[in-house]
């Protein structure tokens, strides 16, 4: 599903985002990427989204080499990957329904498909009663649910999450975590960069730990830290 081979990203100022990272994340897997700030978690998400070019290495999604994708191909790549951010990134002038429908509109979905899928996914994240609300009328947890609904409405095979619980209180963070787990159980590959050690420890999923851009630990059903790796 996701294959990264010897990926290195050096920024213009010389800072190293990721260094010689080699990873394979299989279809339907749930993988946490953990590490301190500046460890390379977000860079990894960004190179998967093709927000930036790699300095060296290769990336494959579903067997397809996306390393050199150009401006015309990147939008179509991103439609195969739902994405959720710490700051929700909802369109403030659109309602919950419109925010989710928008992700379908850009894929040329018919209005019939939109009318069918959007309520379904809003119901899945528990926002069916808030469909007419604007983002500023929602709590943080509700905004993140809306962002999640937008990320999965096109049924992407991969869901990338960059600190999705970073702005949420512990209870709300657990709600979002459970939703992600449910999405994963339906077959979607979930890659989640996070600082939330309690969630990582409790979920018992694959943990990829990063430090200074390197992958320093990669364990199945791991915890946020162990004796070989400390934050």
């Amino acid at each position: 599903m996701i294959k990264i081979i010897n990926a290195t990203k050096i920024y213009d100022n010389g800072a190293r985002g990721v260094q010689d990272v080699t990873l394979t994340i299989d279809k339907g897997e749930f993988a946490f990427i953990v590490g301190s700030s500046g460890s390379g978690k977000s860079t990894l998400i960004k190179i998967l989204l093709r927000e930036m070019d790699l300095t060296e290495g290769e990336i494959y999604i579903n067997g397809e080499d996306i390393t050199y994708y150009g401006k015309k191909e990147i939008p179509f790549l991103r439609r195969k990957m739902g994405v959720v951010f710490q700051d929700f990134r909802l369109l403030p002038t659109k309602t919950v329904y419109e925010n989710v429908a928008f992700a379908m509109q850009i894929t040329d979905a018919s209005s019939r498909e939109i009318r069918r899928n959007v309520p379904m996914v809003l119901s899945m994240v528990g926002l069916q009663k808030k469909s007419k609300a604007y983002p500023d009328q929602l709590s943080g947890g509700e905004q993140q649910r809306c962002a999640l609904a937008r990320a999965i409405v096109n049924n992407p095979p991969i869901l990338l999450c960059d600190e999705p619980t970073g702005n949420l209180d512990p209870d709300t963070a657990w709600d979002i975590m459970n939703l992600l787990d449910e999405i994963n159980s339906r077959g979607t590959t979930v890659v989640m960069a996070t600082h939330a050690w309690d969630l990582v420890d409790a979920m018992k999923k694959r943990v990829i730990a990063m430090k200074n851009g390197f992958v320093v630990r990669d364990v199945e059903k791991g915890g946020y830290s162990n004796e070989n790796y400390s934050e």
Partner: protein
Amino acid sequence: MKTTPNNRKVKSNKASTLKLRNLRYYLSQTTKSLWRNKFMTISSIITVAACMIMVIASFAATSNLNLFLDHLESTVGMTVFLDEDLSEAGRDIVGQTIMVVENVRDIRIITPEEALENMERQWGMNIEALQGDANPLRWSYMVELYDLSLQSQTVDAVSLIFGVHSIDASADISDTLVFINNVVAIVGLIIIAVLGILSIVIITNTIKLTVNSRRNEIVIMKYVGATDWFIRWPFIIEGVLVGVLGALIPLVAAWFAYDNLVASLTGDTGIFAAMLRGLPFRTTAEIFPFVAPIIILLGAGIGVLGSASSMRKHLNV
């Protein structure tokens, strides 16, 4: 480094095509954006309209000035004096020969009596003593030219005709008129170009403000997989609407006001009445069917350029 394999799947290689299904979305986005930024929209329409009214005014002024100058040029022409001993048949032959000279539009024969009357009228005195056989003036032809700038060549050609005594052609006047005509055309073009560029700058800045206020929105659209053209179209439509509305308003106003303006300029009470009376003016039907599509296209083009240039840097996400 490994090269990209050839099996990339690109779903659409015509992302710039305006898809009918999306048109409704684009139009609704444009309408919402125009409404949300209504004061900015109105002010940019007014500013474009102000530029366009000046473009229309300079076009109408240039066009009329050219007409005046053509009119003046046709009255300048030249006078061809004939030999004294030429018979009536000889005068006719000279006339026919002048008519076949290149650049000659029309000729009119002036009898010595007529020439004397003209002289009396011009100088405002009665020269009775010179009438009849005492009239010293010659038979002549008043010659109108197509192109005053070619006057000297025409004079050379006519002077070779047998029976022509001399030619009176004021090179100074013709040169001045041709010069003024050229200056008016160039100045008109410069004014239109400057105002066009000014309009582009204004629309660009207006749309830049809208684009800046929606920068986050554009970034989010890019993250969820919107193509650049999907993001661009509503802004382009917005620019075109502002440009076309900014062009239409002054166009319609000028269309209806033009005849009244000409009438008030040349009417008895008009301030330039004395100066302008007798000069030909272009009619509404002569100016506007020609200028309207140009102004509307100019407005639309300015809108497209303005929106495209203000969006460019925001699409690199």
